[in-house]
């Protein structure tokens, strides 16, 4: 049986684990049970601040605290952290390059039943457009833990994209190593490269097996840091496989697919197909049914991979 843990759980546990560092301050906007910052709150109540349902205020207050030498984690749902508080993230955090980490949970359509208003499908696009912002999208709880550690060590704004849904743990805690801005090749392949982020990394690994059955050798690359993007690993894959498929639980406009397209288009254009949310809002439903409805499946990656390979000259 595969062990399943949500990346938000990994986030909350890591905050509590590394919270002994007295510089760390955690803030939430009335969602601490959902974002899992309550795990930190229970251990270090004196350094936890609930800002109420006031995300805009929370982001600028976090910035003010950060000017005093603190490492501040400010949490909310991704849709509010990146959307409602955008101007505050831009002008209070990114412009002065302050040490605030945004823990944005409930990203993507796997929020499920809450529906389209709460399913952030554009946060990567918005956040990566901001100068000075680092954007991290962990694939599982192990990677989320390491992402939190890296965010603490990095001096500057970081956006951590986290999910609500429990997803398979694909990394081994003992052997996993995280380097900010570096993608990870999970398996080699020569016909096509599948570049994925977040929960779609596991889906890409499933797609690899489907592709193998059809005699196609696919390379699987995990991009946990969407900004700064690892151009080297993308260009190497383009040169060695000649076809790329991106996979993300995010709009195909402005997300990982776009980031990869920017690298390829300017350096080494090869056929590129994108698996993601195709310019529409999410809706209510069970997460697994939604993934199917929106084409975020191994079988869709399979067909997009075959299309990309066909486009090779």
């Amino acid at each position: 049986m595969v062990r399943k843990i949500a990346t938000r759980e990994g986030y909350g546990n890591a905050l509590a684990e590394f919270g002994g560092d007295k510089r760390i301050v955690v803030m939430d906007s009335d969602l601490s049970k959902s974002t899992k910052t309550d795990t930190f709150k229970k251990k270090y109540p004196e350094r936890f601040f609930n800002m109420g349902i006031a995300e805009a205020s929370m982001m600028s207050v976090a910035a003010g605290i950060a000017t005093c030498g603190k490492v501040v984690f400010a949490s909310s749902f991704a849709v509010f952290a990146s959307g409602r508080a955008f101007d505050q993230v831009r002008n209070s955090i990114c412009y002065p390059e302050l040490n605030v980490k945004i823990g944005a949970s409930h990203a993507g359509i796997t929020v499920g039943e809450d529906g389209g208003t709460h399913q952030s499908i554009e946060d990567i696009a918005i956040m990566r457009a901001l100068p000075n912002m680092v954007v991290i999208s962990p694939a599982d709880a192990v990677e989320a833990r390491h992402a939190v550690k890296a965010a603490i060590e990095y001096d500057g704004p970081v956006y951590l994209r986290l999910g609500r849904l429990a997803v398979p743990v694909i990394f081994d805690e003992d052997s996993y190593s995280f380097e900010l801005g570096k993608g990870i090749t999970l398996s080699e392949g020569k016909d096509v490269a599948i570049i994925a982020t977040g929960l779609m990394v596991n889906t890409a690994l499933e797609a690899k097996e489907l592709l193998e059955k059809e005699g196609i050798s696919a390379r699987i690359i995990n991009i946990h840091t969407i900004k700064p993007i690892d151009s080297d690993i993308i260009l190497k894959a383009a040169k060695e496989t000649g076809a790329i498929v991106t996979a993300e639980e995010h709009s195909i406009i402005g997300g990982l697919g776009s980031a990869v397209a920017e690298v390829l288009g300017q350096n080494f254009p090869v056929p590129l197909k994108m698996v993601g949310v195709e310019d529409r809002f999410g809706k209510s439903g069970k997460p697994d049914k939604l993934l199917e409805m929106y084409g975020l499946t191994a079988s869709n990656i399979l067909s997009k991979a075959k299309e990309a390979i066909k486009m090779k000259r």
Partner: protein
Amino acid sequence: MAISKQQSNRLKKYATLIRRHIIDETFHAASGHPGGSLSCSDIMAVLYFNEMRLDPQNPAWEDRDRFVLSKGHCAPALYAALAEKGFFPREDLITFRHIDSYLEGHPNMRTVPGVDMSTGSLGQGISAAVGMAIAGKLDKKDYRVYTLLGDGEIQEGQVWESCMAAAHYKLDNLVAILDYNGLQIDGKITEVLSPEPIEEKFTAFGWKVISINGHDYSQIIDGLAEAKRSKGKPTMIIARTTKGKGVSFMENAAGWHGTAPDREQRDKAMSELDEVLAKLEVE
């Protein structure tokens, strides 16, 4: 408490120097916001030359009092005060808003020595000040945090979010000052979108509210002293001011919110301000 003539004249001198710099900065930039900068000049003079614990030689001093200009467009007033205090050369002021200058159109904490927070998007500065006050409490520091808001600025919902937080966390190390000049870009605040009744709103939000004349040095000093004595809640000083104060043709004219003086207007403003300085010399 009445202050001595000497102290009053000293503050009047600094306020007038700040006003001169504001005129020069905006004239050389051919842009900027003189009206609201002039209305808060007396408050800035008291903060920087009577109230705050600062070390111009060590702008990042951990124990310094903090100041956040929430109405960031009044950067000319802040830069003038910082230059007079010795954070950077006065001569640099006329490079304000120029492409090769560190004096950005709105305060930039990364480029300007003495600026504690980058501001400009209204409503965000008071929130950052709340954050600094929270950090001060966490670290058991005795520094105080000051922030200056515009009266139009309090139309921003974020101001009230942070006011709730400041009262909730009992931030008695925080003092906000409202530059209540009654005008915003589009006209009178009461006609654009009235924030009245202002005193009652802040009181209802759990703040200690003190109303003063924002051009009367002893009232500003007393207000700040009263804020220091108040425990368990943040203080809002509502300072009634005149937009464009100190330059006759700029006073009470919304048009001077975001318009720079031309050479003739600059010269006229300067001669008025020089007259004030000359009078102070005689006294």
